[in-house]
């Protein structure tokens, strides 16, 4: 049985890399994102309130949880899989935190329990993908529904409020002596950790190897299934943690917390230059992508552009991010086809 790789085959992408001229190695997607970020800031600064510390605090607070969830998803996508259940896990975690708190658990213990449930949810994804061998997109659409459903079962239409003020503060005040939101501070620490793991450890390099050629990685002695399983567990825990932050930011626990955010998270990861087929992408790219998206969204908000209409920007950025790098290859393919047409072709059907 061969591994089913949709679309572009791995050989293609390796060949494409090998043929790159020297100057192309300086043209990185991250550079483009940096330019985009500067452009977004310039665009934003045309509105008076944009270049203020308060505004940047709000930009951060709005993207914090999404950016945090994008980190483990980056690893999963690089390994060639996907996790669509992230936002549902956020919702389940928020709901469970509220439920346990309402039932009289100390908030610290409730937070630990929520993280454990996050790990279990991630383990379920991981088991179904690695042990049962199901396509991750189908599995995580299933758990997307399941986790959100469990959240609905736990709290129903009710909501829980009254969390300790000292914790709720985390969601709405900046880190001491700065104007940086807590969630952004946490994101930065996590991003550095994940980035170092991905770039400088054997496990990190293995993730790329798995994404490029799962079977080759397996024969090279990489424990493909174990690593994938652990990535899902990490994703579950991280999303549960994001759920805790979300709960404190809104000081409310509701089953529909973060509904539909999964697509935003996926969009940021893909916009960050991570290949949906795995094996390519960096944390720096994803962090920059999150920054660009957040700044653009806020710039549009300040211009009174409606939230739904701002979706157009998300979509166009996503489309540009995948189409532009492919235009060169598409053109060379067309050229090759034209050349082939000019040449007489002899085909032999001998075995």
């Amino acid at each position: 049985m061969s591994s089913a790789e949709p679309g572009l085959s791995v050989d293609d992408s390796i060949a494409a890399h090998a043929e790159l001229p020297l100057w192309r190695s300086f043209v990185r997607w991250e550079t483009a994102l940096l330019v985009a970020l500067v452009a977004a800031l310039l665009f934003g600064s045309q509105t008076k309130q944009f270049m203020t510390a308060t505004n940047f605090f709000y930009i951060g607070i709005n993207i914090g949880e999404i950016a945090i969830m994008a980190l483990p998803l980056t690893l999963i996508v690089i390994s060639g899989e996907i996790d669509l259940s992230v936002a549902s896990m956020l919702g389940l975690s928020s709901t469970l935190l509220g439920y346990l708190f309402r039932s009289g658990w100390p908030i610290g213990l409730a937070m630990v329990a929520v993280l454990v449930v996050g790990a279990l949810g991630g383990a379920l994804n991981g088991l179904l993908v690695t042990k049962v061998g199901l396509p991750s997109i189908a599995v995580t659409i299933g758990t997307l529904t399941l986790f959100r459903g469990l959240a609905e079962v736990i709290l129903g239409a009710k909501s829980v409020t009254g969390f300790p003020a000292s914790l709720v503060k985390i969601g709405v005040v900046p880190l001491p002596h700065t104007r940086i939101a807590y969630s952004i501070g946490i994101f930065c620490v996590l991003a550095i950790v994940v980035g170092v793991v991905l770039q400088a450890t054997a496990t990190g390099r293995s993730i790329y190897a798995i994404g490029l050629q799962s079977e080759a990685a397996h024969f090279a002695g990489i424990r493909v299934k174990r690593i994938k399983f652990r990535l899902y567990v990490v994703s579950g825990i991280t999303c549960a943690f994001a759920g805790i932050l979300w709960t404190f930011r809104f000081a409310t626990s509701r089953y529909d917390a973060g509904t539909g955010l999964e697509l935003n998270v996926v969009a940021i990861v893909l916009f960050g230059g991570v290949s949906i087929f795995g094996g390519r992408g960096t944390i720096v790219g994803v962090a920059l992508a999150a920054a660009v998206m957040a700044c653009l969204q806020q710039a549009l908000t300040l211009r009174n552009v409606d939230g739904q209409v701002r979706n157009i920007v998300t979509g166009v950025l996503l489309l540009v991010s995948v189409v532009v790098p492919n235009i060169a290859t598409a053109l060379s393919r067309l050229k090759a086809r034209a050349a082939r047409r000019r040449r007489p072709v002899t085909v032999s059907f001998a075995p």
Partner: protein
Amino acid sequence: MNVLTAPVATQAGRGRRSADLLRARELGIVLVLAVVFGLTTIKNPGFASRASVRQLLSGASLVALLGVGQTLVVVTRNVDLSVGSVLGLSAYLVGKLFVSHPHVPIVAAFAAGIGVGLVVGAINGLITTATRVPSLVVTLAMLYIVRGVDARIVHGKQIDPTSIPRSYQSVGFRTVFGVVPWLTIIVMAVVLVVGYCMRTFRSGRDLYAIGSNPEAAALAGVPSGRRVFWAFVVSGGLAGLAGALFLSQFATVSAVAGVGYELNVIAAVVVGGVAIFGGSGTVYGAALGALLLNTINQALVAAKVSAFWNQAVAGALLLLAISFDRWLSLRLQRIESKRGERRVLR
């Protein structure tokens, strides 16, 4: 996403036996459907009433229709996430058409809805095939763009039932024999026609070939790009039709019409036995999958299980369905390979 999926059903249509297997797959869904329906009716006889059955059918119709288009696309190893947004845009634009021209003929209104979908489908197909960008990303982007355009047009307003002609609304609620809504009959007709085409015509068989093995299909001379393009166009067109039907069914359309449908549709398609990495599955299965999911949702309500359980059960069911499918295909593969050995020995 390199998951090992090479179900036996991939060879659909090549041999009679594998065709039988496929039919068995749909039979399985029908059986589960019958069990769910039977058990719920025992618990609550009202479940088999005309009104209830009508609701089961009309509630599943739109997702089933979207599932037909999705099947065409998924069979070729692609995916169309933009269907929910297309439905929303098409529903609003058709509604707007009625607001500005109250006497538009119904057929023209439907054509307008389908047209909206065809345009978006063509864009999806063009970008996917011309630049060879993964369709998941392209259609995710289009999900956002189309929804954004929709919101821009809607601008916080909504279409009210008063501006929709009664005759148009009757498509959504008038029934045959008091049980089968016209809406469902339209969807069934689409399912049958597309199902026949996919089974009989060369272009339909090509879709399976592309999904089973893209390289082999290209070597065999299948015009993959053109086929995939048209699969997206049809999926878009059907999503547009679904938008027009949405308007006739609910007569109220705001900027959030159809939000989140895409995942429901994919769930229905997967439950219906369409392999998410292409090459196998039928539109009948997809439509039955939509009916099954809706029936289970309604059954929970009828069995007085709190409505809050709906999603959790739907999610668990989806996971069970794909796990069972995997188990079945592995088993069938083992049987097939054994048979093969025996044949070699003989």
